[in-house]
Every structure is written in structure tokens, then in C-alpha cells.
């Protein structure tokens, strides 16, 4: 297991290199660059020379292989350089938002897990009863409803409800406070986007839990457990649930990685300054260095999540032995 983990960590490097090549060249396929955009963006006459100076300063007219080597060495030495758009250090810009995005992703994952596993389990046990139908409708609604729309509903709901019960409307805080500074303010701001995305994300996991559990409940060893006279509760908890959580863990893990960079619209609705927003801005600004760093960050999160899931697998299923 120990050896396997080391091997997996070493394997990260080729994967990351692949991601780096992809993002590097794909970005440069988009016509235009950050200098043209900035100067032409003002709508005034553009001095060709000024653009050239700008390109010179940012190093984007250097030969492509030089740029690539710069990028790679920078990445592996944790020296990400400055944003081409704002000129501020990338580590600083990402750092500002990383905490928030990570927290929302974790909270959404927890929300999804807390919803999905019990609901999926009940739905499987009560297969084809009205309880099952309600749970399935609830999760189909989660898939059908975009999270940003649910987000808007949540905000409106909060306003209306607080108005009704407390006399004056209450809105979640607009400005981000780190959790260790003021946990209450922090949670009361981030819980809503977490619920909005967590609900959607629970839908897939609920269905997965249900179908995986139904499959396990048909296994011979569950019949053995029944033949031993064990109570249904113990059969579900001990004999069935652990086996059926494997595919669910995969889904939840992959979603988590996605949430780290993918919450563009939800961040907008809740006015959060997260990585998703930064991502979109940096792509529209042709901010090569920033986009590259963000892609690499998401790639790292993805790989680490996968590794974590594999280790979890080995823990859930003793037949799996990595070597």
C-alpha cells in the first residue's frame, strides 16, 4: 500500500506534464493575446509599438519552446510568476480564492453525501413503494434544476421567509470572511451555495447508491446473511452498504474535483469571489500564465482525489491489494 502510494505520486508527473502541454498549446490557438486585448479594448488608436513592448515585457513573443520551458520549470519549482492581466503574483491571486472554493467544495460534498447515502439506501430498501418514488422524483428534480436557479430560489426564499417571520429581510453576508475569523459569518454565507450545488450533486450519488445497493442486495452473501437470521438493519449496514459504496465513492470524488474549478455561475449568483470566476476571467483576458496555473491546480486536485478514492477502495474492499 505504502509502495503503491509512492508509485502513484510519481505517476502524477507524466500526467501533469500531459495536462501542461494541452493547456499551453490550446491557449495559444485562441487568436489574439493579452496585450492586444488590453490596448485595443480601450477603443482608441493602438500603437503597434506599444503592443510590441507589452509583448516583449510579458515574454509572449519569445520562441514557443522558451515559453513552454519557462512555464514547466516555473510550475515544478512552485514559481508561478505573475498574472499577465493584473501583474500581481499568481500564487497570491489564487490563494485569495482557493480557500473559499475549497470550503464550498467540501461543504457541497458533505451536503451531497449526507443527502445521497441515506436517501439512496431508503429508496433501495423500499424499492417501488411511494417512498422510493418520492426519493427518485426528488433526485430527478436535482438533476433537472440548474444550481444557479436553485441558488436564486434560495436567496429569494431566505428574503421572503425572514421578512415574514422576523419582520425584516435577511440576506447572507456578501463579503467573504475566513472561517477562523468568524465561523458564523463564514458558514452563513457559504452554506447556501454549498446546499445549492450539493443538492444537484447528491442527485447522481443518490441514484448510484440506490442502484448499487439493489444490486448488492441480490448477491448470494446477502441471502446467506438472511439465512442466518440476522435482522434486516444489520444486513443492510454490515453486509450490503459497504459493498455498494464503492461506485458511490468514485462519483462523489470526481464531483469534488470538478467543484474546485467549475462553479462559475453559482459563484456569480452568490457573489462569491472563487476560482471559477477567476478561471473565466483569465480565459477571457488571454491571461496565459493565470489560466495555465489554474488548469494545473485543478489537475493536481483531480489526481489527488483519485488517489484518495483508490486508497478508500482498498479500505472498503479487502480483495483489492495494490502493488
Amino acid at each position, binding site marked *: 500500500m505504502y509502495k503503491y502510494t509512492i508509485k502513484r505520486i510519481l505517476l502524477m508527473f507524466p500526467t501533469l506534464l500531459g495536462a501542461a502541454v494541452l493547456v499551453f498549446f490550446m491557449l495559444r490557438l485562441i487568436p489574439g493575446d493579452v496585450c492586444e486585448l488590453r490596448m485595443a479594448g480601450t477603443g482608441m488608436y493602438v500603437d503597434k509599438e506599444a503592443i510590441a513592448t507589452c509583448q516583449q515585457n510579458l515574454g509572449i513573443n519569445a520562441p514557443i519552446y522558451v515559453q513552454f520551458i519557462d512555464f514547466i520549470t516555473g510550475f515544478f519549482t512552485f514559481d508561478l510568476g505573475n498574472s499577465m492581466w493584473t501583474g500581481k503574483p499568481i500564487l497570491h491571486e489564487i490563494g485569495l480564492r482557493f480557500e473559499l472554493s475549497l470550503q464550498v467544495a467540501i461543504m457541497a460534498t458533505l451536503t451531497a453525501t449526507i443527502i445521497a447515502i441515506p436517501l439512496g439506501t431508503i429508496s433501495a430498501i423500499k424499492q417501488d413503494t411511494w417512498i422510493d418514488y418520492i426519493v427518485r422524483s426528488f433526485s430527478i428534480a436535482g438533476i433537472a434544476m440548474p444550481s444557479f436557479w436553485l441558488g436564486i430560489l434560495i436567496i429569494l426564499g431566505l428574503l421572503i421567509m425572514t421578512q415574514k417571520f422576523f419582520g425584516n429581510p435577511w440576506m447572507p453576508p456578501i463579503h467573504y470572511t475566513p472561517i477562523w475569523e468568524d465561523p458564523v459569518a463564514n458558514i452563513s454565507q457559504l452554506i447556501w451555495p454549498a446546499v445549492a450545488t450539493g443538492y444537484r450533486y447528491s442527485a447522481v450519488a443518490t441514484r448510484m447508491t440506490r442502484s448499487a445497493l439493489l444490486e448488492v442486495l441480490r448477491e*448470494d*452473501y446477502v441471502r446467506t446473511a*438472511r439465512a442466518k437470521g*440476522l435482522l434486516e438493519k*444489520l444486513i443492510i449496514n454490515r453486509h450490503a452498504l459497504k459493498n455498494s459504496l464503492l461506485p458511490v465513492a468514485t462519483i462523489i470524488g470526481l464531483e469534488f474535483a470538478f467543484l474546485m474549478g467549475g462553479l462559475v455561475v453559482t459563484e456569480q449568483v452568490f457573489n462569491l469571489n472563487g476560482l471559477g470566476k477567476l478561471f473565466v476571467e483569465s480565459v477571457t483576458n488571454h491571461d496565459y500564465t493565470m489560466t495555465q496555473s489554474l488548469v494545473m491546480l485543478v489537475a493536481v486536485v483531480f489526481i489527488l482525489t483519485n488517489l484518495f478514492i483508490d486508497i478508500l477502495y482498498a479500505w472498503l*474492499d479487502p480483495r483489492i491489494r495494490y502493488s
Partner: protein
Amino acid sequence: MSALLEIEDLRTHFFTSSGVVKAVNGISYDVQEGETVAIVGESGCGKSVSALSILGLIPSPPGRIVGGSIRFQSEDLLGLDDLQIRDIRGRQIGMIFQEPMTSLNPVLTIGLQLTETMEHHLGMDRADAEKKAVEYLRLVGISEPERRMRQYPHHLSGGMRQRVMIAMALCCEPKLIIADEPTTALDVTIQAQILELMKNLTKRMGVALIIITHNLGVVARYADRVNVMYAGKIIERGLAADIYREPRHPYTLGLLSSVPRLDQPRQQRLDPIDGQPPDLTRLGEGCSFLPRCKFSVEKCVSETPPLETIGDGHLSACWEQENLATARG
């Protein structure tokens, strides 16, 4: 003296989209204390369904017991509620299944799977149950039982796993064990060992045994009495020796003439007799064995032969059973 288990006119049907499968269609038999009774028949004739019916383990839907009674120690099992039948399962009646590879939970240790039954039924604490479990593992011939307790099923061979299943079925000292083709999935050499072990342990502990098989060779060696099943019904019953020496049903005769032997390579399915068993969704009047029968007479088409006593403890459901005796004799 009343029997340990008395099954009367049991009917278990499956309500599927392609019709009602009459898997068990009115069977009656009994098992005395400490006795070994075999249920023999081709694949799909309803052996497993009849066994699962006893413990209320028929998957429902689509299955349902639609008639009959099952009395165990004079108590009607079909009248019990869910909790009561769970008290019988594993405690009074143990069960061993065909597939040792899939019948144990792959993610739980052998120890846990053994102790949980005793903890549940006998109210033992973990430490006592573990001590007992080690004893039982040793009893069924598993070496280094302490170490095995901490292992998972995939560490054990098929034969070893089936020994674990036997230990699991025995550990609450039940009155009856139902073994559903316990050796079909095993290597020939292991088959005999496992059967020997089951026979010895049940005899020693005074446990009655229902052994389900499609191998008449097994029957002759290990069973006291035999019930031969065909298309959801029992068509012949008798002492193992009688059935073996003097079968009084064309189907049993067919089975016997192609007995797979323990010393020969194993057979997955047994199809000793020309033709296919009937479709269990459309059983009509007349003898269900008719299309495959060499002895049939006109009566067989229109009238279903009842299971009737033809000798001391010997019953047959065939209009021509007497001629069969002479034909063979």
C-alpha cells in the same frame, strides 16, 4: 411421534411477465429428527425453491408461497411474522448454499461472519463467540483456525469456504440443516470430503439434514430417505436403498441409468434423459413426464398420477409403476 419437519402440499409460484412459474407445485414430505433426507432432480425442477420456501427466503416479488403448510417442531412456519421466522433461521434451521465463492461476504472477515450469528441468536459476547467460532472451525477441519478468523473469504479455497459455511450453519446447534447442492461447485476430490464431513457432524450432533442434489450417487451413500422431484412435484419417495435397487418411476430409472459418480469429472448440468423438462408456466392435465416417457399409456395423457404408497415407505406417482417393476425385474 410427530416429525421434525412436515411439509404439506406446498406451492410456491413466481408471478413473472411471461406467466406464473409453478416452481413448487404441491409437494409433501417430512424429516424426522436426526435423519438425512435427499431431494433429487434435474436442474430447474424446484429443489432450491422448495428449500428456500422453508425459511421464507423466496424473493418476493416475484415469488410467493400460495398454498400448503410447513410445520417445524409442530409450529407452522408460514404463520410466523418476520421477526419470528428470523429467530428460526440460523438458530433452529441452518442453511448451506451451492456457491461457496459468492455465499460469503467478501468484505467481512471469516471471524465476524461466524461470530455474528452466535452473538445474535445466543446472546454471546464477542470474546465468547470468537472462542466458539475457533472451536467450530477446528471441528470442520480448518487448520490454524485463529489465523483464519482474521482472514477474508478470498484467502480461502472453495472447499475451505464450504467448510466455513458448514461451521456457520452448525454454530448455533440447529435441529435441521438444509444443504442446497453443497458440493456441486467443488472439485471431485473435495466433494467427497465435504459430504463425509457433513454426514459425520450431523450424525454426531444429532442434526437432521436435507441434502439437495441432482446426483443420485450422493444419495445412495449419504441419505436415509430420498424424494425425487420432477417439474415442481415429488414423483417418487422411499428409502435410499429401495430407490436405488428398485426405482418405481420412469424418471428415477432414467436418473439412475446415468448416475454421475464421485470418482468421475464433475458434471455441471445433469440431463440424463432425452428431452427437456416441461415449461413450468404451462402445466396441464396428465403426467408431466409424459413427453419423455417410454412407458406411457393412454391414461397418462388425461389424468395426473397421484403419489401413492406402493410398498413399505415407498411411494410413486406413475400409472405404470407396477409394470415398471416387472419390466425391470
